């Protein structure tokens, strides 16, 4: 079983030119939630992961993965 989930939220959010506050507003959560997910401190529920994917216009598996991103 994987011990952590890797995410590309920060990279994709930056690509879209969104701030943490902007993404928080789109998804309906606090900036702290976006920040903790981006930093891997908090693993979001499936519901929140899907909302993030929808807000960023990307498939959820592009945002989250069990393997680290090759560029990392």
């Amino acid at each position, binding site marked *: 079983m994987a011990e952590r989930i890797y995410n590309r939220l920060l990279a994709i959010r930056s690509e879209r030119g969104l701030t943490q506050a902007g993404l928080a*507003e789109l998804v309906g*959560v*606090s900036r*702290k939630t976006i920040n903790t997910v981006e930093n891997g401190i908090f693993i979001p529920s499936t519901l*929140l992961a899907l909302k993030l994917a929808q807000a960023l216009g990307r498939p959820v598996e592009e945002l989250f993965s069990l393997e680290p991103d090759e560029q990392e």
Partner: protein
Amino acid sequence: MTASDIEQAERHSRTRSLIMAVMAVVLLIQGLIGFGDEASSMTPMLRHAMWGVTVGLWLVILATGGWFQLSRNVRSVMNDEVSLAHRSLALQAGFWTAILAGMILYFASLRWDMSLREGLRIIIDVAIAAALARYAWLELR
């Protein structure tokens, strides 16, 4: 959901956490030194009622997030996934503190006399204080 809702929610969340931190200290002191029965100018009934109301209020806030006067949108951001996870961890801390306090008082009662009411008040105060402190720490760090 608007940017103003998010800003308001973050502001109220911070205030809530700060109040919880202060209340944790107050409850801890209250639990450890008691009400000062002889020194208090309040009647015993009023003192017990005030304690019951205070504890009840903080239990409701720990269970629901409180701040019911705010709009549904603001409350939903204040009680988003991270906040709910923090509340869950805070309640765990409260549970373990209650068990530990109960065990300490059990063994302490073998040596010192203590009324049931005193013992229960200490356990409840210390457990709620632990839950509030844990929540405040998780939210404010």
